[in-house]
């Protein structure tokens, strides 16, 4: 049901001169059973309504029929009836009617078309229509709510994927660099070993020549010069200090790779459950390793980490919070700058402050940065979800986040998480 026309019941209206007694008779006819009231119309213009209740009170009073019965309805009717135009939407009409109707309800309302009488509308039908509408609305509301929930979790998922993608890119480069020289060095060491092994063989041959009773001077001479040549070739390709450096570089590279891998493991602990006893300084450190690729070329990081009590939290989520904040800080720094990360505890909370020397956040944006999809970054660079997810994670941990910023100077975010209550 969209508008009031569907409610309209075409009933022959009363003339203004019809007597009350006649109206009383009409109300008694079965065709009028359903009507609480009847409209009074002259030349198409609705003048009023007369209710069954009112007529009955008049006629049933003492000598009512005798005294009043012959009088015209116009003297008794309610001459400011409720009028609703036929093209009014249902909600609007019901709003108008519920505000203006008298209680108890003894009258229905008149439906007009261009000011002229069109029909009668029952209040009860209006309420039913309204209820139907409410039910369908509720249904679609529930539907869009569940759609919204689904797409929000998809968005969270895709944000996770996006930051995962960024992370993987960075980590791949971080690992491939040491892997590059480690691999190459090992190949070169193998080539060196091959040469040394051949050289060793030649030496052994030389020794057995020396030990043999019939010593062949000429063969020994050849052997000797062959060895000489090989030694020279070897030391031309592989200088001793270079070789030594090659091994220490290789070990260094392997150390780096295992550092990255163990930090990666720390960072992405997929344990969704809350884990107690987490030292947030560790989270800071492993996040910094993960973000290293982003940071190292433009930002100097200063760590000022205090001694912290353990905090009950989901470390993978806290890492995500830290990565979001650090990423934002790096993005805010246009050329080169500084990020300072400090941690401390006040006995109740652990606080992590991430302060950057970036471009700052204008006052008018400060209230919006935690909104989903609020971003000042170009399309493709920012989804605007980072801080809204950060906010949600911190709230889930019963913590809070505050921000302070000065345009042109920098921004500081402070994350505060409650310390685990002692069991």
């Amino acid at each position, binding site marked *: 049901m969209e508008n009031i026309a569907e409610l309209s019941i075409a009933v022959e209206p009363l003339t203004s001169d019809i007597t009350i007694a006649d109206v009383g008779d009409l109300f008694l006819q079965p065709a009028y059973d359903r009507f609480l009231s009847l409209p009074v119309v002259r030349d198409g213009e609705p003048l009023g309504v007369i209710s069954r209740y009112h007529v009955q009170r008049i006629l049933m009073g003492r000598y009512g029929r005798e005294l009043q019965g012959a009088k015209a309805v116009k003297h008794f009717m309610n001459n400011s009836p409720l009028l609703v135009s036929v093209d009014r939407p249902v909600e609007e009409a019901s709003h108008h009617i519920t505000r203006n109707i008298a209680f108890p309800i003894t009258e229905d309302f008149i439906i007009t078309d261009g000011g002229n009488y069109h029909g009668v509308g029952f209040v009860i039908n209006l309420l039913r229509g309204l209820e139907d509408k409410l039910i369908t609305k509720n249904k679609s509301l529930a539907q869009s709510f569940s759609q919204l929930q689904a797409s929000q979790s998809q968005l969270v998922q895709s944000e996770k994927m996006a930051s995962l993608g960024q992370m993987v890119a960075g980590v791949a480069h971080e690992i491939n660099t040491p892997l590059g020289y480690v691999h190459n060095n090992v190949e070169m060491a193998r080539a060196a070993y091959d040469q040394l092994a051949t050289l060793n063989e030649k030496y052994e041959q030389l020794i057995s020549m020396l030990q043999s009773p019939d010593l062949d001077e000429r063969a020994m001479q050849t052997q000797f010069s062959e060895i000489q040549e090989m030694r020279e070739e070897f030391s031309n390709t592989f*200088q001793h200090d270079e070789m030594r450096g090659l091994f220490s570089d290789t070990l260094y590279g392997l150390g780096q790779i295992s550092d990255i891998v163990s930090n990666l493991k720390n960072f992405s602990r997929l344990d969704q459950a809350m884990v107690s006893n987490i030292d947030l300084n560790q989270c800071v450190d492993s996040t910094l390793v993960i973000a290293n690729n982003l940071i190292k070329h433009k930002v100097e990081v200063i760590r000022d980490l205090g001694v912290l009590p353990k905090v009950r939290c989901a470390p993978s989520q806290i890492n995500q919070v830290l990565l979001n904040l650090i990423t934002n800080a790096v993005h805010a720094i246009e050329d080169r700058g500084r990020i300072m990360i400090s941690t401390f505890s006040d006995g109740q909370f652990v606080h992590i402050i991430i302060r950057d020397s970036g471009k700052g956040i204008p006052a008018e944006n400060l209230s919006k940065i935690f909104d989903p999809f609020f971003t000042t970054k170009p399309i493709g660079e920012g989804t605007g979800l980072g801080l809204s997810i950060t906010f949600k994670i911190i709230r889930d941990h019963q913590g809070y986040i505050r921000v302070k910023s000065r345009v042109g100077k920098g921004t500081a975010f402070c994350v505060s998480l409650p310390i685990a209550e002692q069991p």
Partner: protein
Amino acid sequence: MIDMITPPVKPARPMQNADLRPTLLFVDDEERILRSLRMLFAANFRVLVTTDGHEALEILKREKVHALISDQRMPLMSGVDLLRQARDIAPDTMRLLLTGYSDIEAIIGSINDGEVFRYINKPWNADEIRAIVGEAANIAMSLGQMLAKPLEQSAKEIRGILLVDDSAEIANNLREYIDDSFPGAFHLEWANTLNDAMAFLETRKLSVIISDINVGRDDMTPFIKTLKHFHPHIVTIVLTNFRDTSLLVELINQGQIHRFLPKPMRKSMVLRGIQSGMVLADEIRLRPAAKQRHKVETPKNIPDAGIISRIRGLFRSASKS
């Protein structure tokens, strides 16, 4: 910074006279990479290394370098930046990227701005990198003499462009752009299938081919790779919204595409691409040896042998005439 990593100079290596060996310049922000590469190449090349792109540019200004091999992600100057500036300072130096990971923008930049000869992944394989870098250096050595000859004046002729794309709108727009900016200079053909493209290739003289990666149901990559292998004088520009890093690397190493342009097509970009493509096509036509600079790796993973033989056949008939 060079000196820091240079090992103590030994008395001249007896095998070669240092001046005759090709010179390689490696740029990476990790010194250990430089040390490792220096050892790998020192026997056969004169090896220069630096961690700083600015320093690398100074070296290029100062002396002849045959191949420049650079990392992409570096603090002071990105690899693509370095290659772009190297192109201006020392256009004859072959440019290669050696990198652990590049985002797609960097790879596109290395094509369009860096005109990179090869893209090598870290970790590399010692034999492979020796072969690739050696090939690049040899090309630069052999061209060193030839490029000294003055360029002959090009005969004015109308040059052919083939667009391979399934969108009529793109074809119309491109025609409009070309008529607008270079009236009468180029002859534009449009093919919307691989088959049509082959037919044009067989019947027309083409200087530049502009192609999408997927046209209708045809995958154009084998075509693009094989084409460059057998027709190095045709310059390829890829115009697509397809974005995939490993495909791009293949298109560099096995396809030597001249430009990679994103869709939606932008007038200024495509016109500039055509212009520089034409200059390159002319250079290759007038100095065939120059095509060495765009030599491709033997294409791998080409399923459709039919295409290869058709393009190869074309090549034979072209070289006979």
